[in-house]
């Protein structure tokens, strides 16, 4: 029976942290610890001397973890980013998903693999949620703009809503632009003139 892996998850958002911990639990019987406070991050991590540290690739706090690579004698015990460099597909998947991991150098790939796979799946889910949210927001903003532009046209030219929309669409097609872009230009112009 091998000893448990000691894993630290650096994540300030509590809900996200809990979801990551859940997925890592499913990947094996590991000792998981969450750090949500970023002050003296490197020292807190060094105190626990974990096997793996998992952190969001897009978090600026990652640079604080770089100090860990120098924590002891820098060349004796390097802390590798993205685990085993021979496993290129895992590295790519991790970057794609936005996971970065710091791993002690002597950790065997087969022990790391399930943990990374779980983290990658979870982070991919976060990313999809974020993308969807951004997409919904954008669509909503565009709808609002188009509605305002339609309103402006209806008032200025005395046409109905369908005619206003057709006019926007035709202009967009003629100019090779998106309807939302034409609407934005019209709304900006109207704001300037009013």
């Amino acid at each position, binding site marked *: 029976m091998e000893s448990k892996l000691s894993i630290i998850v650096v994540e300030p958002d509590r809900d996200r942290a809990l979801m990551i911990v859940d997925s890592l639990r499913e990947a094996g019987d590991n000792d998981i610890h969450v750090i949500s406070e970023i002050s003296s991050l490197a020292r807190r991590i060094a105190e626990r001397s974990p096997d793996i540290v998992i952190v969001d*690739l897009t978090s600026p706090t990652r*640079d604080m973890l770089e100090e860990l690579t120098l924590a002891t004698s820098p060349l004796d015990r390097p802390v590798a980013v*993205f685990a085993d460099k021979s496993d290129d597909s895992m590295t790519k998947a991790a970057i794609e998903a936005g996971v970065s991991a710091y791993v002690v150098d002597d950790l065997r790939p087969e022990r790391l693999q399930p943990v990374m796979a779980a983290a990658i799946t979870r982070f991919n889910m976060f990313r999809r949620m974020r993308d969807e949210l951004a997409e919904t927001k954008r669509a909503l903003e565009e709808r609002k703009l188009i509605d305002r532009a339609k309103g402006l046209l209806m008032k200025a030219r005395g046409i109905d809503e369908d005619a206003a929309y057709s006019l926007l669409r035709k202009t967009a097609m003629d100019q090779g632009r998106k309807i939302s872009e034409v609407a934005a230009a019209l709304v900006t112009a109207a704001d300037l003139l009013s």
Partner: protein
Amino acid sequence: MTLTRLSVAFIPLTDAAPLIAAEEMGFAREEGLKLDLVRAPSWSSLRDMLAFGRVEAAHMLAPVPVAMALGIGGVASPISALSVMSVNGTVIGVSNELANKLKANDHDFGFRDAAAAGKALVAATDAPLRIGVPFPFSMHAELLYYWLEASGLPAPQGVSIRTVPPPLMAEALSANEIDAFCVGEPWGSKAVEAGVGALLLPGRAIWSFAPEKVLAVRTPWVAEEPALTGRLMRAVWKAGRWLSAGGEKTTASELLSRASYLDLAPEIIDRGLTGRFLINDRGDMRDDPHFVSFHQGAANFPWKSQAAWIASRIAARLGLDRAVAMDAARSVFRSDLYRRHLGMSGAILPGASEKIEGGIAEGTAVAAENGRLILSENRFFDGRVFDPSPEN
């Protein structure tokens, strides 16, 4: 004309200006390039993006590719510094509490004299000084170690240098996690604006010709794409020349302030570009017209002696073989590629690729392959020089 797309990573800093200007002002287009500028969230992720091929080139701290060549830090891929993108451009600031102590001791905040500021700091501190820098391998860290050691605050007894991401610097200062910082603009001015600190010195006051950022690519990429390498180098070099020409600073501040780049008010960015600083919240102003150089004095030439200086400092601190480290570092700064690709564009090429660092008191004419080369002032605040030749 079809443009070749290149992904280039940058960190939101004033000295990312050459990349942003290359794309926005048409210098990339002149070379048939479209730069997809990718804003990186941290220096480590920028390094990983470059090392693992997510981007083709990056705006990199000059010591990072040197450290990678020495096998230190997380990733050790061979990276080439094609040119120096900027010389100097960092600023040292202190917390309001420390600023008050310095003032009480009659320090004048002259923003010029590193020896005087160092002496004042030593007199004002009793516990080890905690200083934030953006990355463990950075000119910020190297300048601080050099300055404080020579001022009588050697690490680790007298000073503890910690990593704090630039956008969090002001916060760390007000939370009393650090007493001082060294950071690239506009983040020093942001701390002043937030009312949490005062600016003490430009990094230039410690070493007046410190290579700050380099244009970095993967070394194998240079061999695979020799023509593209030259086109990228020329586009960025021309942008640097444009930035250093007078009167372009307002345009540059406006470009940098856009949401996809720095996303900050242009008047804050303007301070680092023009060297006109507000140093505290009482409205005191200081001028340093040479705060950052994007072009002048052969600023872009990647001197092998600069890489050797960085390596010799890191090696001494971490107990590595100094001569081996300096040799490994020399091969990172690609003066050969600079000569090959920029000579024809009008860049002045110095006769040698190494020089004695710290040995130039004021603008000095030196031998050049073409035209006339005036090297800018290059001195360390304590008057020491660094001779990179092997017997030293």
